């Protein structure tokens, strides 16, 4: 099918290996499997039609994610309720580790939290945080790749990640206490 780009690599060869990653990021952005499927399909169609604009040898995954994200912002965002942002500044840095370093210094409780719950917690983050966290810590993209994909400075990627991880840890802690994986910390006087 797809015609080769300038470098001779076809759309199929370049784009199809990233379908799983596109689907996962679509799930994070939409928090709805049906919308995520539509978003991936729309993205692939747009990417196919724009294939001549793809510069061979550049980052195909980043290129596809940029299309996915723009499609989401233009056509999907208004359909979804935005989670309410926590006051991240109110969570002190490293609060989670300090809370449980006596009882679970290795963080073995992380392994007890099922992936569905982790993803649920990720999906409850504000969209700016959810996005960078998914691209960095789940998809394994570098900060520079994320900055290029989202068209924001690397410093912004870093500060969002810092806050996203802080809020996520706080939510996972609450979940782990609720489930009895760890004991709640005594309130400090």
């Amino acid at each position, binding site marked *: *099918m*797809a*015609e080769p780009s300038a470098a001779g690599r076809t*759309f*199929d060869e370049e784009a199809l290996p990233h*379908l*799983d*990653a*596109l*689907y*996962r990021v679509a*799930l994070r952005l939409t928090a709805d499997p049906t919308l995520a*499927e539509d978003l*991936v*399909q729309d993205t*692939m*169609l747009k990417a*196919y*039609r724009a294939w001549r604009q793809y510069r061979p040898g550049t980052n195909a995954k980043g290129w596809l994610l940029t299309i996915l994200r723009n499609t989401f912002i233009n056509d999907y965002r208004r359909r979804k309720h935005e989670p309410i942002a926590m006051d991240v500044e109110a969570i002190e*840095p*490293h609060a989670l*580790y300090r809370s449980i*370093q006596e009882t679970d*210094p*290795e*963080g*073995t409780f*992380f*392994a007890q*939290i099922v*992936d*569905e719950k*982790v*993803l649920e917690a*990720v999906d409850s983050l504000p969209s700016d945080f959810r996005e960078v*966290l998914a691209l*960095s*810590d*789940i*998809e*394994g993209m*570098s*900060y520079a790749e994320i900055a290029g994909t989202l068209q924001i400075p690397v410093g912004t990627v*870093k500060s969002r*990640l*810092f806050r996203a*991880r802080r809020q996520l*840890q706080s939510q996972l802690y609450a979940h782990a206490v609720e489930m009895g994986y760890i004991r709640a910390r005594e309130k400090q006087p």
Partner: protein
Amino acid sequence: MSRSDCEQALAHLHDYLKREITPELAGEIQQHLERCRPCFRHARFEANFLAMLETCAGKEKCPNEVRARIMAMLRAEAGGD
């Protein structure tokens, strides 16, 4: 080791674990972690946090029927040229 060494290590812990800092700073932090047990334990904890997130990627795959639908769509698109 000084308190500021600990502060530096903790401030850059995630970026260190993600290999997103300069080799010089990474070297300094690594040396610090080798000598400072509390910071080493903290780093291990944060590494486990990041590892937990990485494993989530394996959990979600594009469903086969969606993949098939996309392939069919692309074939139709190619045929329409």
